[in-house]
């Protein structure tokens, strides 16, 4: 019998637990040329801000061992053009759409999120309170439990569909921030955003990113992501979307076992754009071979020593 890959997050049903990670497939148009987006559980858009942003000057990506650094700087079309130019395409896709929102003030989050209320096809918001690359990228919220709770609460007042809080690994205690997001009213948590890092050109002695530092992503961050998801799963009752270096179906199974209910695939898309499709196929085969009927047979089932 075919395993049931459906997953329910805060009352919204997803066809499967694979999502694209924010910033890794724009607004979906390019990825749709590679495979039908209906194969995804959900598409998560690039971070949307109130005004359009060009981001940092190049170079703003750098290859690292088993991963990459990026300091794109929240380049995006802004909420107005997002609604007029990007949403019509997204509405036609037979997949769930999660809009990632970033802001530099509580008011910016409120303004953007309240406007997204009017488009029912946009199923959820993922609140980016953890971008490490721009001063105004929400990190000041995500680094503080108090401010996390405050901004989540403020958004919940104006936004009436489920809210995901995307958490940073660049904090002393991710569990503390997770609990604050829950207190504020977030229905789902997603983690981790990228880890702050840098790399230097030994010939010019300059960083390889004009921003001097960036966010580390890719397979190299997976062990950090798994440990943080495990910690949050053990201490917090909200469902978790795992993020951080998931590239293969084997990675996906690990994320599920430590407690992720769904997983976002990010950097892997750059190297293997069909990765989400291959992960779904592999996960299906794995569940069949292990005679697992539903994802709940896997989620959080790690057998610890």
């Amino acid at each position, binding site marked *: 019998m075919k395993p049931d890959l459906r997953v329910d997050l805060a009352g919204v049903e997803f066809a499967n637990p694979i999502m694209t990670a924010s910033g*890794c*497939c*724009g607004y979906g148009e*390019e*990825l749709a*040329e*590679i495979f039908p987006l209906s194969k995804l559980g959900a598409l998560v858009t690039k971070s949307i801000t109130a005004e359009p942003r*060009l*981001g940092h000057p*190049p*170079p*703003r*990506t750098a*290859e*690292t*061992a*088993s*991963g*990459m650094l*990026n300091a*794109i700087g929240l*380049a995006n079309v802004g909420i107005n053009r997002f609604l007029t130019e990007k949403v019509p395409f997204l509405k036609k896709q037979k997949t769930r759409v999660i809009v990632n929102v970033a802001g530099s003030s509580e008011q910016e989050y409120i303004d953007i999120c309240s406007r997204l209320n009017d488009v029912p096809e946009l199923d959820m918001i993922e609140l980016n309170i953890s971008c490490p690359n721009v001063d105004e990228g929400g990190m000041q919220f995500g680094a503080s439990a108090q401010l996390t709770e405050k901004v989540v609460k403020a958004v919940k007042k104006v936004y009436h569909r489920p809210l995901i809080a995307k958490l940073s690994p660049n904090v002393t205690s991710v569990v503390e921030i997770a609990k604050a997001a829950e207190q504020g009213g977030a229905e789902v948590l997603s983690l981790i955003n990228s880890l702050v890092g840098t790399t230097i050109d030994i010939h010019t002695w300059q960083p390889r990113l004009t921003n001097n530092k960036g966010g580390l992503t*890719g397979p190299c961050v997976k062990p950090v992501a798994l440990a943080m998801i495990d910690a949050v799963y053990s201490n917090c009752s909200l469902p978790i979307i795992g993020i951080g270096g998931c590239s293969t179906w084997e990675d996906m199974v690990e994320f599920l076992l430590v407690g992720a209910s769904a997983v976002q695939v990010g950097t892997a*898309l*750059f*190297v*293997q*754009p*069909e990765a989400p499709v291959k992960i779904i196929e592999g996960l299906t085969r794995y569940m069949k071979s292990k005679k697992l009927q539903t994802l709940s047979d896997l989620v959080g089932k790690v057998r610890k020593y």
Partner: protein
Amino acid sequence: MTKPACETALLTKRRNLKNGYYSYTFGPFRAAGKCRPGHFLHIKLPCSDVFFRRAFSVASANPEKQELEVIFKIFGRGTRHMSQMRPGDPIDILGPLGNPFKLPRKTETAVMVAGGVGVPPLLYMAEQMVAKGYDPKRIRFFYGGRSKEDVIERTRIKRLGVHFHPITEDGSLGEKGLVTGPVATFIKDNPGCKPRLFACGPEGMLKATNDLGLRLKVAGQVSLEAPMPCGFGVCLGCIVTLTSGGHARVCREGPVFEIGEVAL
């Protein structure tokens, strides 16, 4: 925009062009027939210490045999790994990607400006134009390199019957100097030839060609290169600044841009 395919092909033919240059033919690749001059392929190398794919311009395509050729020079880790492949080895190809060159009118003179390992798309374009019945004498193939070892595939270019102008910095082949000097002289000396520029090569050469086109009011296209994590438009890593303001992605709006379009 041509939809890219993602397929595993085999290395069917490996030619060592000497001095670190190689020509590789891959197949079968179903989208081979869609690959135009200026399109590029994003290739995943079969090794764990090269994380991103690497971009290579299409040097020729054979739709019947479903084969594609790329030409590269050993430059860094990626190309070094690539140089160690053997015929029969599999390789993961994403492509064709980007926008190709627009062929000139048959009444125009195509002025090709190639630099070093930037030659593949222009070689492919010249071959395709001749195959399509363009007069080879209306193709001026200016090809610059540091020395004669860097001016590769000379026999292949000459065989087309085009005007071939090799230029080397050390004077070991053809005129001594930079490629853009003789290009400017040609355009000034032949006012009635309806020139159109097509350039691919190092950044300095592209900037010089772009400036030349603007100064002499000659239209044309330049193919840019940039480090590309994804190659299909989603990572926003390979941006350039447009003269009209704003950004363009080299992989998506490019790699071929009109002269004057990009702030080089």
